[in-house]
């Protein structure tokens, strides 16, 4: 009897064969995989450079199998800009947390998007500073508890959470901006489609692209992975609607 086998699942070539340091239940790992699959499918791994942020994904360069740069906190879009301008033939992506992108790096992301830099941003929004131990982020929800707002975020004192996808899509410069989530298989499949699309647009030299991915931080949220997924589904998506905000294809067909 001959047994034939078909590979249904394997490690993407764009991922290193190594164990990540992420906490159990954290969705950073899923997002890494989606990015790697997109690079594989587009066949661009060997002409891609990633830019790692400061945050829990600071070691992303140990997990991806492509060239990588390690940026100062929040400055990944500036590094990506400098690199891409000199090497427009290469694919460049930044992978940034919400503290990195929406707080210290607010200036860099807004201006890079506004200039229409032809790179891709994977924006991991977990509504908290993970790496430094759960402090308040600009994306922390009203009344959400963190170590620097233990009574819950008081918007009268700290302002309202910043919606980055909405903010960037208000720019006149054409771009691809979509918000997705990774807490259920259905959402993961949709997130993959968005990430691939963002890279596709870059490969075609069409526009800047940002995919905001709603992500979990069970450790600093003080919840189990399961509770975290539920909280993301109920609380985060209410404030951060899952939706495509801007798509050049849509603009062109208008």
């Amino acid at each position: 009897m001959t047994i034939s086998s078909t590979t249904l699942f394997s490690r993407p070539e764009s991922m290193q064969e190594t164990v990540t340091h992420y906490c159990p239940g954290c969705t950073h790992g899923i997002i890494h995989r989606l990015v790697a699959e997109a690079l594989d499918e587009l066949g661009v791994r060997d002409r891609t450079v990633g830019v790692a942020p400061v945050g829990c994904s600071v070691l992303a360069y140990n997990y991806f199998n492509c060239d990588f740069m390690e940026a100062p906190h929040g400055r990944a879009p500036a590094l990506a800009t400098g690199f891409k301008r000199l090497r427009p033939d290469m694919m460049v992506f930044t992978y940034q947390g919400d503290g990195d992108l929406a707080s210290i790096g607010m200036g860099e992301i807004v201006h890079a998007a506004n200039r229409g830099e032809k790179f891709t941003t994977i924006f991991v929004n977990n509504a908290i500073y993970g790496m430094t131990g759960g402090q308040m982020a600009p994306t922390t929800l009203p009344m959400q508890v963190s170590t620097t707002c233990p009574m819950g975020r008081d918007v009268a004192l700290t302002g309202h959470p910043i919606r980055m996808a909405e903010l960037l899509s208000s720019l006149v410069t054409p771009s691809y901006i979509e918000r997705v989530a990774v807490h259920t298989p259905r959402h993961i499949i949709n997130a993959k489609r968005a990430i691939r699309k963002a890279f596709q647009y870059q490969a075609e030299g069409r526009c800047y692209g940002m995919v905001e991915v709603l992500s979990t931080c069970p450790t600093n949220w003080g919840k189990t992975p399961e509770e975290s997924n539920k909280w993301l589904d109920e609380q985060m998506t209410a404030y951060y609607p899952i939706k495509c905000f801007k798509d050049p294809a849509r603009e062109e067909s208008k």
Partner: protein
Amino acid sequence: MARILMKGNEAIAEAAIRAGAEGYFCYPITPQSEVAEYLTKRMPEVGGVFLQGESEVAVGNMLFGAASTGKRVFTTSSSPGISLMQEAISYMAGAHLPAVLVNIMRGGPGLGGILPAQSDYFQAVKGGGHGDYRLLVLAPSTVQEAVDLMGLAFDLADKYLNPVMMIGDGMIGQMMEAVEFPEGDVKQNRVNPEDRAWAATGAKGRKPVIIKSLFLDPHQLEDNSWLLDKKYEQMKKEEVRFEHYKVSPKNKLLIVSYGTMARICQTVIDDLESEGVSVGLFRPITLFPFPEKEVLREAKKKNIKTVLTVEMSTAQMVEDVQRAVLGVKPIEFFGRTGGIVPTPEEVRDEVLKLIRPKKKRSTSGRKGK
């Protein structure tokens, strides 16, 4: 190529292109904005990249990203702008990246003023950003020298895989002088990123290149710091540059001065010579590595009574001179700052007071206005 009359800032811009620079990132600030105004037209002409960023914080980091491609890249700014770039400079040093930065200094601290000063000496030569690192620092005293040192700056950045800073004051940037550029095609000095194993050129047929300054293991971080230190020690052996002006055994006094201030001191020395007073000038061209042994050698000469450091700052380089001279001779300081350029007369009076003391001098050793 014929000699042409050019403003310092524009000459620096052209020199960078001829040195093979393919990327320039900037943010406007007086007194160096002409570099950007020149390059916005010139860079595209030679197939290079010009980009005005949203801040010096971003520009420093654009330079960081651009340097990672392996191509020759640079930026120019002035004092407050350079302060904002310190983050990226520290990261580039930590990641062993070559880049050239030009600081056309203005008076500080704070917003200060827009006139020439040399008050960023400490920032340039002692670190500036965080961590155990140094920049190789070059200080031209004429527009022609700025042109020549710009080419050298790119070579040294590549040799050491370290950021190199050229510091000039607002005078160098703003004055016009006749300059000559090296002959040849502007593209001849461009480098091939594919030859640079450290550059991020795409992981085709090789392991990924990772450009980083993060070492969570303290032993690895310490190793990186010692590796950097080794480069700085090598610079001290191989890159010390300086110039003598009318240095002779007859000198009664040795002036140590750099940049345009040194030029003013040359006028003073010429005037004094015609009056029969012998004074020599020692002009460091590299501020890091500082020409310590060479200053000491001159200071030790029998006839030298005093070493006078003249700067457009409140006594910064004088600390390096003191370190070099090891107390073998008295060291005096004269300086003006805030954007005031000392006149030759002021410096001359100071020199004469030291050579022919009328009454007992105070021992503070620091003189300025």
